[in-house]
């Protein structure tokens, strides 16, 4: 039983990271109708930026982390202004290929830095543990969960109480009507990409103590896509909850199923969910509740 709870907590922690990446994906998709295949690469860039500022330039960790997130946010905005803006209104495939290409360029750029390539790095986070009775929790896992809750609350407040948040919501509801009401739609698209990129960078920082920092850490985004789709692609809380659900399901599968089955679980769940609930779990539940 104790082992089960132990596995459950680590599943929730990794699920929070899935959820945050899925959240960033859905945020961009909702606001701009474009699909981003580079969230994993933004995550990796964010982690490496913090690493470089902290270990390379010697800045304190909190400042390095904050600057890394800001840098990736600006990067997202810049890419939207220069390249991704052209994908708006085009078939999904255009955005898919564009963001995949941009992601490759980011991965290649980081790999070109001799100091970054080919190695696993670690940020000097405390590697200690908290003990609650017989239960032992890794500090990094606790941090991930706490940070996710804080971020989710901050985002909810942003979308509910600020002008920019309301304008962004109006944009994703109906861009034309929003434009008629005086919302600067183009600027909102930039804001959405910037927020989405920054969110991915935060996920990268939270992931850093769990899996450490390496070139392929962005592959975790491949598990965030199923989460985003399970959540219904347009629901922010849905994406977060689906991410946590997938993290837990994966952890439990790792405990119960034979070796190797764990990595397939998110995709198998996604396929079966798509076959059974074509509009996402959230829509399935809502429809069930309305009946």
């Amino acid at each position, binding site marked *: 039983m104790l082992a089960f709870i132990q596995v459950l907590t680590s599943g929730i922690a990794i699920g929070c990271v899935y959820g945050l990446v899925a959240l960033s994906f859905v945020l961009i998709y909702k606001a701009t109708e474009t699909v981003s295949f580079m969230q994993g690469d933004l995550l990796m860039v964010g982690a490496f930026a913090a690493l470089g500022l902290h270990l390379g330039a010697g800045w304190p960790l909190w400042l390095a982390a904050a600057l890394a997130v800001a840098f990736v946010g600006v990067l997202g905005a810049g890419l939207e202004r220069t390249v991704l803006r052209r994908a708006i209104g085009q078939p999904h495939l255009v955005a898919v290929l564009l963001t995949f290409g941009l992601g490759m360029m980011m991965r290649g750029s980081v790999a070109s830095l001799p100091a970054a390539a080919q190695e696993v790095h670690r940020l000097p986070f405390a590697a200690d543990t908290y003990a609650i009775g017989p239960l032992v929790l890794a500090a990094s896992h606790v941090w991930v969960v706490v940070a996710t809750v804080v971020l989710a609350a901050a985002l909810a407040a942003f979308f509910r109480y600020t002008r920019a948040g309301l304008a962004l919501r109006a944009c994703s509801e109906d861009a034309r009507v929003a434009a008629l009401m005086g919302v600067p739609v183009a600027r909102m698209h930039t804001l959405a990409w910037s927020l989405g990129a920054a969110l991915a960078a935060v996920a990268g920082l939270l992931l850093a103590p769990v899996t450490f920092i390496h070139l392929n850490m962005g592959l975790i985004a491949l598990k965030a896509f199923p989460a985003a789709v399970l959540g219904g692609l347009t629901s922010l809380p849905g994406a977060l909850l689906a991410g946590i659900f997938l993290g837990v399901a994966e952890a439990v599968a790792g405990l119960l199923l034979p070796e190797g089955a764990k990595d397939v679980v998110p995709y198998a769940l996604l396929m079966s969910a798509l076959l059974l609930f*074509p509009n996402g779990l959230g829509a399935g539940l809502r429809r069930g509740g309305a009946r």
Partner: protein
Amino acid sequence: MSGLRTAWRHLWPWALILALAVPAMGADYALGKATLVITYAIAGLGVVIVVGQAGQIALGQAALVALGAYVQAVLVGHGLAPLLAMPLAIAAGALGGALASLPARRLGGLYFGMSTLAFALIVEEVLARWDSVTQGAAGMAVAGFSVFGWRADATLAQALVSLGALAAALLLCARLVDSRHGRAWRAVRDDEVAAAACGVSPAAAKMQAFVVGGALSGLAGALYAHWIGFISPEQFGLVFSFELLMLAFIGGARRLGGALWGALVIVAIPQLIAVLRDHLPGDWARAAGLELVLFGAVIVAVVLLRPSGIAGARP
């Protein structure tokens, strides 16, 4: 007579490219690359059918190529003649395509694209874990292609076998695209609701497109396994899927001939990058990431500058 003339109009650029490539790179090397271009083009035809004709987002086409390659490799490894194994490899690809298209019965667009991605990741994981059959992540060696004791070891023989397969595939696709099925695919691509109102079943049309695309992928995979001689699950990962998508996109996904042009570009890019690296000054040109950066830049540039592809730009 006019048929000959059209054929010539399509063929002369290729004859010219080959005539230039043979003295420039050496006959063996040029023919080896030509084989690769043709094999990519066969897989690319599958993507053109699924993406260009039926208008679906297919993010996991490499998994269908992998199915063909692995079925061929395993069967030939157990002593079956390559020519007899090939229909089974094609069938495996087609069956994989049918399976991958199951969610299309209820979904469209992006949701379905994501489900093909999930399908591909499952296939890759199974191939890497099923040690007893596929030898897992270590990969497996594949014997050369042979028919009745004649072995296609020479690069010329390999190029000719591939060319024969491509010609058959092109002929079949041209017939299909002009048939009732092709019209159904394009109707579904342009408007699913309108297509359904006209008595075209979108679910059936999508599945047919995936079965044809899967069969072509399976054929390409079987040939690829023989030509490369060694396959492992990671060769057929997400990057290969995107290479195939890009291939169809570069060539122009709406035309069958686009697959060949796209394949030429995809095979040529690494060569060009290698040449470029030798001529760039400084140490950073040797860095491992440069290839990725340039490849990504090519994708972005093509999508931004030639959205309808090379073949698609012509009227």
